[in-house]
């Protein structure tokens, strides 16, 4: 190709050759184009990052850090060391065999006197009591009588107040709790504990509740997810094949529950399912049930299952619907024309195409279900409680915050793994409402 440049004739090859001699391509302001481009891209990336920065910072402070602090609390409990600091220090150096000597008892007596003055022994006593049930009273009683102990020998004096002070198991426990960092709350959260010589054993039979509760939470969540799937599939299909005029109207029936307050829906289910409620009245009226023999459908596991299925159903319908909407109806017709009967056509052509929607809905509902708290607390009675309810119980009633944090830590890990799977499989940016 020839370019006319004022008399001289140059080829394109010459131009490139010339530039190769004078250096790389140059932008308008004289910097090499390559560097300029990198600069602009970097600036654009920074700008995008800066837009998200305020929110990321906000969430780090208000959400990530608090949860991190909670997790720290599950493995770090300084109650004993705070109240009896010198004893804790001495215990850390003690080799931990049998019952320590006079020296340790002297330090302990001084610490206990201080604790009596500060009225702070309760915290340390509770901490030891978690590890060795029944030792709470040992501390409170000893502190009450510590005023009488004025001079050595402290060992004899303390043992006289309570002979448990002569127990090597107690001292092994004390040595363990004197360390602020502990795994014992995580052990308690999976029904295990340390025994006297520090090895991990199962909790006593009647104190084993958490593993069973974790299983119940998983099993109920799976059941609720399955029920949601069963109810959502036909409805989503109907919504996806109806003309928009009708499906938009029917969609309101799905979205209205989604927008209605959780407590309103839970209250509504109490009104529906209680023994004098609408469902029982209907069943009695149609003579399915006897009037004195009304079904107990609320304040038990059934209540939790029904109410949670209702509450989580829209989370299954919406992803299923958005996938089904994209499946061309001609595929089913093609299958039929190739000789498949309607069931085969559904099973081999339609159903496999809906699997992405099923995966999205199932994972989302399951993730939301295993962390549910409010509905089981209000309509679950005794056997409809989930693990979240126990975390709340330890936070608000028993005040064993470290155990609550440890249970929460285990639940959190489970949820985050599922969330990661969801993100890999479905992509979190595919999430939509309405």
């Amino acid at each position: 190709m020839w370019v006319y440049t004022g008399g001289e004739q140059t080829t394109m090859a010459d131009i490139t050759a010339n530039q190769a001699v004078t250096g790389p391509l140059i932008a308008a302001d004289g910097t090499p184009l390559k560097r300029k481009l990198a600069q602009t891209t970097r600036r654009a990336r920074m700008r995008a990052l800066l837009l998200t920065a305020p929110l990321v910072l906000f969430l780090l402070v208000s959400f990530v850090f608090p949860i991190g602090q909670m997790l720290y609390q599950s493995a770090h409990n300084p109650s004993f060391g705070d109240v009896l600091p010198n004893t804790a220090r001495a215990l850390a150096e003690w080799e931990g065999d049998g019952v320590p000597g006079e020296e340790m008892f002297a330090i302990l007596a001084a610490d206990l006197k201080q604790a009596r003055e500060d009225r702070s022994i309760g915290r340390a006593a509770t901490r030891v009591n978690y590890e060795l049930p029944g030792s709470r009273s040992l501390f409170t009683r000893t502190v009450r009588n510590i005023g009488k102990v004025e001079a050595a020998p402290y060992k004899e004096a303390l043992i006289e107040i309570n002979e448990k002070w002569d127990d090597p198991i107690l001292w092994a426990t004390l040595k363990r709790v004197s360390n602020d960092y502990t795994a014992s709350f995580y052990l308690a959260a999976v029904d295990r504990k340390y025994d006297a010589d520090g090895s991990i054993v199962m909790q006593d039979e009647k104190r084993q509740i958490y593993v069973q509760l974790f299983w119940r939470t998983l099993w109920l969540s799976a059941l609720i997810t399955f029920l949601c799937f069963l109810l959502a599939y036909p409805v989503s299909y109907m919504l996806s094949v109806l003309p928009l005029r009708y499906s938009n109207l029917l969609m309101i029936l799905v979205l209205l529950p989604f927008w209605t307050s959780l407590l309103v829906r839970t209250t509504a289910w109490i009104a529906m399912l209680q023994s004098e409620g609408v469902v029982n009245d209907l069943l009695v009226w149609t003579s399915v049930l006897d009037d004195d023999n009304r079904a107990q459908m609320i304040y038990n596991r059934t209540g939790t299952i029904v109410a949670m299925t209702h509450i989580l159903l829209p989370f299954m319908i919406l992803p299923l619907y958005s996938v089904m909407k994209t499946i061309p109806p001609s595929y089913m017709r093609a299958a039929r024309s190739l000789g498949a009967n309607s069931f085969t056509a559904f099973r081999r052509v339609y159903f496999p195409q809906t699997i992405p929607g099923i995966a999205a809905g199932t994972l989302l509902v399951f993730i939301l279900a295993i962390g549910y708290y409010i509905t089981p607390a209000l309509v679950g009675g005794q056997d409809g409680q989930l693990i979240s309810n126990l975390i709340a119980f330890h936070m608000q009633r028993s005040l064993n915050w470290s155990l609550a944090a440890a249970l929460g830590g285990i639940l959190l890990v489970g949820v985050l793994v599922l969330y990661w799977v969801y993100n890999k499989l479905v992509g979190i940016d595919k999430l939509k409402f309405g």
Partner: protein
Amino acid sequence: MMKLPAYASPLERIWHYTYLVICVLIFIFLIAPIIIIVPLSFNAEPYFTFTEGMLSFDPAAYSMRWYADILRNGMAAPDAPIDTNWFADMWNNAQWIRAMRNSFFVAICTTVLATALGTLAALGLSRPEMPFRSAITGLLISPMIVPLVITATGMFFFYSDIGLAKTYLGIILAHTTLGIPFVIITVTATLVGFDNSLIRASQSLGADGWTTFRKVIMPLILPGMISGALFAFVTSLDEIVTVLFLADVEQRTIPRQMWSGIREQISPTILAVATILVVISIALLTTVELLRRRSERLRGMAPQ
């Protein structure tokens, strides 16, 4: 409606009608509990169930007493003549009115904060050059995924340490955290298919960044922003777990009041409140649906 093809076999016809019946039953399951509380809230008796009179449409069996109870419960002198003093008494002392004031105050502050932060972040996330997009999106959506009890527990420890527990600010921050995923999801959805050449066109015509945002970006994402804001509003209005953990009696919200109502003395007043909340949800849902259709029309994605 759904039509059967002409070649359908009798078995398929039976299945088709069974299928329709199943769908109707599922829709009833979805909507019945919400509909049923409306008539129950007009019960003249202090029961949670339909009385004989209600079923035979006896006007005497219906009353507004539970709605009046929302106003009167907790007032110093509920039976005084209705004048300005009565209204002042109601405004300051009635339990449900106080709860509503708290709820709306918290929800409005939450909405403003969550929408502002969330929209900014969504704008950043939907830029093609955004680095670490999936990790950051994952973080921003996670408050919706992490069980509320865990979030509330963490916040309880942290906010107690820094003196924000039992304050309005603490609850507003907690609710903002929980509302943000909804804002991000709705605003990002509006930004999908956003034509970035519009920004370049605006810049080439001499507009600075702020003018471009105000005159070009804003009108296009406004429907999404409003939907996101409404989602944040509803999330806050409905939130109970962090309130249970963080709030004092002073900061009781409507859900908190309903919670103790359900646990302690269950009365049809709760159904009256629930009915009002359902009406609010219907209004919000209608707004969001209209906005969504408007946004689809604006971007030429209107389904015809």
